[in-house]
């Protein structure tokens, strides 16, 4: 029995090509039953995400299966030749383990792919499209992903400014549920950052902008409330996270302004995220008790450090994956006779 993988991903094809081959959840069952008609194919799992479309198949005759898959894909895409990469075992096994561990992802070490693989496998199982070898392969892949993540730093840190800000807030407040966010300046980047916080349970979002209508519009979009810009100090007592991105030429959050406001909220940390250039918050406020200031440079520096750490871990991950591949190939060799 052989495991064959054929697919396209973000490296081999641009999005306009990938979208032609994408398999939506509603057509997955049909696609699975269609490819199971391919001569020599014992079972299949289709993984279709925004960055990849991959077919994992169990077969005794890989060449015939690949030909069949190429024909199917051509037919699906309207006679377009898919820029397919193909892997035969053990290379296909290694490929799946790398995909599950996030090593093949666009953002190195991202974890969403594991959930997508689990979903793809569950769908194939529900359609009765998997075989014993595919079951074993995917279950092993999930174990590999867990092992790699827990033993290395491949998922360490965050890889976007928004998620770094959320991580930092977690290291200041712990649970973000019930926290109040004040946005000064209704720009796109502050909106994205605020949305990251809301998705992690932040309770209240207050928007203040020089143009009140714009503040009101953003507040409505993210389920918050708007205040007039000059009134923000009045609601400051309840604020935990301050996101600034105004276009003011001078700092608007200074030590002189913040100092007296902080006296009304003893022992309550304040996380200031300054996304504006020129900066909205004076650097000296970071010296105030319970105030943690991060500007755009410091957030981007953390993103870069996280990526660097992840890249440095790739070799260790590959070694761990090699061991798992040997283990799985050994199992396959011992179970040649009991295929399907």
């Amino acid at each position, binding site marked *: 029995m052989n495991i064959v993988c054929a697919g396209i991903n973000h490296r081999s094809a641009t999005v306009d090509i990938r979208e032609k081959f994408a398999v939506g959840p509603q057509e997955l069952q049909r696609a699975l039953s269609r490819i199971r008609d391919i001569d020599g194919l014992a079972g299949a799992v289709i993984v279709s995400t925004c960055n990849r479309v991959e077919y994992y198949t169990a077969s005794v005759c890989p060449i015939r299966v690949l030909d069949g898959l190429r024909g199917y894909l051509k037919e699906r895409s309207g006679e377009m030749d898919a820029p397919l990469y193909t892997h035969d075992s053990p290379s296909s096994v290694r490929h799946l383990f790398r995909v599950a561990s996030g090593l093949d992802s666009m953002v190195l070490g991202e974890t969403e792919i594991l959930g997508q693989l689990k979903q793809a496998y569950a769908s194939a199982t529900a359609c009765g499209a998997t075989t014993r070898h595919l079951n074993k392969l995917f279950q092993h892949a999930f174990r590999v992903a867990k092992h790699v993540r827990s033993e290395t*730093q491949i998922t360490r840190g965050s890889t976007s400014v928004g998620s770094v800000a959320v991580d*930092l807030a977690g*290291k*200041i*407040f712990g649970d973000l549920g019930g926290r109040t966010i004040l946005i000064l300046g209704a720009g796109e980047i502050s909106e994205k950052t605020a949305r990251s916080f809301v998705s992690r349970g932040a309770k209240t979002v207050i928007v203040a902008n020089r143009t009140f209508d714009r503040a009101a519009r953003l507040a409505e979009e993210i389920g918050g409330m708007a205040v007039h810009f000059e009134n923000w100090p009045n609601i400051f007592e309840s604020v935990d996270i301050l996101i600034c991105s105004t276009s003011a030429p001078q700092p608007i959050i200074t030590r002189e302004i913040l100092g007296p406001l902080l006296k009304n909220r003893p*022992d309550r*940390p304040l996380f200031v995220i300054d996304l504006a250039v020129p900066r909205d918050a004076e650097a000296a406020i970071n010296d105030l008790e*319970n105030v*943690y200031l991060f500007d755009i440079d410091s957030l981007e520096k953390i993103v870069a450090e996280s990526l660097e750490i992840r890249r440095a871990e790739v070799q260790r991950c590959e070694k761990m994956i090699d061991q798992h591949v040997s283990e799985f190939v050994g199992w396959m060799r011992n179970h040649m006779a009991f295929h399907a």
Partner: protein
Amino acid sequence: MDRFLLTGATFCLLLSFCHTLLALGAGRYRPGVFNRVALFGGFVLLTLDLWQRGQAQGSCPINSLFDVLVFMSWSILLIYLLVGPAYHLSLLGAFTSPLVFLVLLFAQLGLAGPPAQGRFARDPWVEAHAALSLIAYGAFALAAVAGLMYLVQDRQLKKRQAGTLFYNLPPVTELGVANARLLWLGFGVLTVGFAAGFMSDLQVNNLKFATSVLIWIGYGLLLALRKTHRLPARRTAYASMVIFGLTLLALPTIQYLSTAK
């Protein structure tokens, strides 16, 4: 053979300490089973050692400076095992193991001598006073450790550094809360311990009494200032470390001087 259990406990803590250092050095520390098992192993061995020496001395085994340090190490581990999981402070173990290891090492290398004889009669108030006081110091020790963790995390946030410790240390707010709660726990137990001392017929020299009262007032004042928001979390963390450091120096010195007389 009589030091076998103690040596075993010290070895467990050394293992935990080395494991933490190696993992942190490799930049991949995660609080895990190894530290918990090593610290629990150390606690069990210390408990057996104390029980054995308590049987031999016919009283709570805190009759010499050596005994005091061993008992305090035991109480630090006890509080850690009770409090650590409750506050999700797994990494507290990584900071606790070096402290307890050094205290035990100092006790064994610097103070080991012939086994102490029970010096006072079996007055339950005296026993309660001594044992509770040392358990309180165990809580204060852990408050100092939580304070150190707070300061490390606070510094990393202020300096905008996201190193290995940053990702593994608990949130700075939770560390501040843990620091304050451990101080309250220690203060409460110490107060009960002092009350037990007053109920007994124990005669202590003035220097020891004055030092103990000063420590009690010091922690009481610290907690009062914290409670009324006059002392922010960062300064409370510093103060808890400073007062415990002074206590660690003062009490054994006085105990040593008293024994020398």
